[in-house]
């Protein structure tokens, strides 16, 4: 910048030059880009979360209601021994009560299929009712019992009454024929025009055209349509009557033997339906006859079907039958394990962190310990499970799949989290507070207990609750110590009894083949997530409450 072009006395920065303006524009653009990246990141995270919750709720909401039928059961006092109510034949009572709704139904098979509409657990429900209310014996009581799983799914619209008869690859074969324009309807029957050779070799000396192997001729001829097809599934396309049809034709015209002819062969039922109606459906094979639909519809019409909220999900123990399975065993197992975990990891974690932060001499051993604790926080949880298996179960001989052992393994996992969080909280207490306390004549441990720890409590509690929430959802270590027991009753819950935990329950249900467990698994996941949210809210609340004293 020479003096000639400058009008100002001193060389000041030119804020309005093109270069300056370009810089400003670039700066604004960079700001906007940064904002955009931030919003894009948050938006993506929110979208993914939204997808997660939507799929979960969509898959699981059906499990939160149960289809039940109102059953009027007569508690026959002659059949029930008041001294031993449990031993009575409630299964028969329930069956009789239900069959009485359909007095027209006769025959053993029909009656059996009818009673299969009710859940197998209906008898136990009535039994438990009788045990709880012995004064009702001799009366006609109305109890709501769940229907069995297929009908529960049917009523909720999850499974259909009819399903596609043909799989997609079969439909593909059919479409090949359609493409070649050989399909037509004759006399109400779908037929396919097949070109085949009436092989004289198939016509025997004795019997002649009557006894010829027409099926074989058909197989050979039909195969020409599907030369590239490796399997023989195309044979299903033709009706079993096709051989008869061919036989009729050849017998009527025996001179066709040895010639290549075109013949219309009838299609099998499913393909016939495909041709004439456009779709082939069969009854859902979970139901044995159409009568079952009629009976169920009758119950619906009579207003006996209701869908109350599934409290059983929380209060029942596990079961083979999805309509009866609940989370009571899993919830109590998880609760006990978490309790043990908290009681072990909270004091040990805080004491360790306090010692490392305040009292430990600053030498290499302390550094080594610190590094190792930080690394422990990153160890995969399944390793802790192996440790529990090898040490607690094998060496110490502790009971397998007990919440005590589960809690100990979880405590090992949670300890590093608590220690790291506590150290950070202790570091955040300003040194002026410690100096003030020391200046007044407090000893080191008095400074810790009376001043530093109370101020560090919000951070410590937050870290603890986050660690516990993590422990609640850990599956791998619990699986390895066997906390995956099938707990059918809530009577034997204890620290040293075999137990189930919430994440392992989800794992176990996800493996089950019954359709009803699909929605129940998602419902259990929703319950687990609900608890995690609650625990995090508790952490936020506790933090706020302690922080306001600052």
């Amino acid at each position, binding site marked *: 910048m020479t003096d000639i072009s400058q009008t100002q006395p001193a060389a000041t920065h030119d804020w309005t030059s093109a270069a300056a303006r370009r810089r400003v524009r670039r700066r604004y653009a960079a700001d906007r880009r940064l904002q955009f990246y931030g919003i894009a990141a948050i938006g993506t995270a929110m979208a993914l979360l939204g997808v997660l919750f939507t799929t979960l709720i969509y898959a699981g909401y059906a499990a939160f209601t149960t289809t039940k039928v109102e059953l009027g059961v007569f508690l026959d006092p002659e059949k029930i021994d008041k001294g031993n109510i449990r031993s009575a034949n409630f299964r028969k009572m329930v069956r009789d009560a239900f069959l009485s709704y359909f007095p027209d139904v006769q025959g053993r098979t029909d009656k059996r299929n009818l009673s299969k509409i009710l859940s197998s657990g209906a008898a136990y429900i009535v039994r438990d009712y009788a045990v709880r209310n012995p004064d009702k014996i001799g009366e006609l009581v109305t109890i709501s019992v769940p229907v069995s799983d297929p009908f529960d799914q049917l009523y909720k619209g999850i499974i259909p009454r009819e399903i596609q008869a043909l799989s997609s690859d079969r439909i593909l074969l059919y479409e090949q024929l359609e493409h070649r324009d050989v399909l037509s309807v004759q006399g109400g029957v779908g037929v396919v025009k097949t070109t085949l050779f009436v092989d004289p070799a198939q016509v025997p000396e004795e019997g002649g055209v009557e006894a010829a192997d027409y099926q074989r001729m058909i197989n050979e001829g039909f195969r020409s349509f599907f030369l590239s097809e490796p399997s023989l599934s195309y044979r299903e396309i033709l009706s079993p009557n096709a051989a008869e049809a061919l036989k009729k034709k050849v017998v009527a015209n025996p001179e066709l033997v040895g010639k290549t002819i075109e013949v219309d062969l009838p299609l099998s039922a499913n393909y016939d339906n495909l041709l004439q109606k456009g779709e082939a459906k069969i009854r859902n094979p979970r139901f044995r006859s159409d009568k079952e639909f009629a009976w169920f519809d009758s119950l619906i019409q009579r207003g006996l079907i209701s869908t109350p909220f599934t409290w059983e999900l929380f209060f029942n123990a596990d079961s083979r039958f999805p309509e009866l399975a609940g989370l009571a065993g899993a919830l109590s197992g998880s609760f006990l394990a978490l309790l043990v975990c908290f009681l072990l990891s909270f004091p040990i974690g805080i004491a360790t962190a306090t010692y490392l932060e305040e009292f430990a001499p*600053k030498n290499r051993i302390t550094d080594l310990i610190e590094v190792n604790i930080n690394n422990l926080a990153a160890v995969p949880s399944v390793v802790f499970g192996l440790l529990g298996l090898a040490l607690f179960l094998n060496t110490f001989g502790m009971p397998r799949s007990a919440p005590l052992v589960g809690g100990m393994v979880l405590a090992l996992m949670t300890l590093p989290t608590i220690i790291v969080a506590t150290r950070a909280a202790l570091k955040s207490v*300003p040194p*002026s*507070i*410690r*100096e*003030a*306390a*020391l*200046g*007044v*004549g*407090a*000893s080191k441990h*008095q400074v810790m207990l*009376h*001043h530093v720890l109370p*101020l560090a409590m919000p951070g410590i509690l937050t870290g603890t609750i986050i660690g516990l929430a993590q422990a609640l959802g850990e599956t791998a270590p619990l699986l390895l110590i066997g906390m995956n027991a099938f707990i059918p009753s809530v009577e034997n819950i204890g620290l040293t009894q075999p137990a189930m935990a919430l994440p392992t329950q989800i794992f176990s249900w996800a493996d089950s083949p019954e359709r009803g467990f699909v929605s129940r698994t998602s419902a259990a996941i929703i319950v687990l997530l609900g608890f995690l949210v609650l625990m995090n809210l508790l952490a936020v609340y506790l933090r706020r409450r302690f922080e306001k*004293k*600052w």
Partner: protein
Amino acid sequence: MVKGSLTMDQQVVSPETTTIRSVVENPKITSKDICVFYGDKQALFDVNLDIPRFAVTSLIGPSGCGKSTYLRCINRMNETIPIARVTGEIKIDDQDIYDPDLDVVELRARVGMVFQKPNPFPKSIFENVAYGPRIHGLVKDKTDLEELVATSLERAGLWGEVKDRIHEPGTGLSGGQQQRLCIARAIATKPDIILMDEPCSALDPIATAKVEELMMELCENYTIVIVTHSMAQAQRVSQKTAFFHIGYMVEYGDTKQIFEDPQDKRTQDYIFGRFG
């Protein structure tokens, strides 16, 4: 350089370290050859100082000269820093405070400290003052404790302003009030000596004036040592002044004499503003 004139206290020049210091009769605190090391770095070189009782002694000097370090030796606060090491001897009332058998916690109850930035505990005003007496078991029951708290707050000049809200958080007070609360906290443990490390540097002039007034009242019953950057403050409140320079205690004498007629050249340069 020996100056022949005699004042109330005689002047002694010790030849090895060229320190000019006056002899004090019946001193409360005596220091002999105090050296402080932070790791390998030496912060104080052979400080010899006698602090008189029932008077305010101020320690002045440029930043980093070691006056705060010396102050913290008197109540052994340097021990809270792991790399700090103190050699030499300090006696309070002829008792060696670095004696290993001495309980340092009790020492800190007898030697109170007020810090540069007011640091009340995040508890109520009452709790702030009551904490010290409680942990040292100075009072027997609740009424005694309440009386002690009230007395301390009154002596600190704060009672009138807080008596209606004594259970509210101490951190809710203004800066000057907080510092007076810290003074009340320090005197609640019934100390003989109060150490103040630049107590007014974070306060506005009005609060400063109040705290200085307080100091002059308190020195009738306590021995007070203050570190200050403000020479005007030293002149206002203290009877004796010690000038520190890069780890050495250079000159010590009556405040009037130090400020009007400093003997050592370094003192002269500092007092008359040629460096600060």
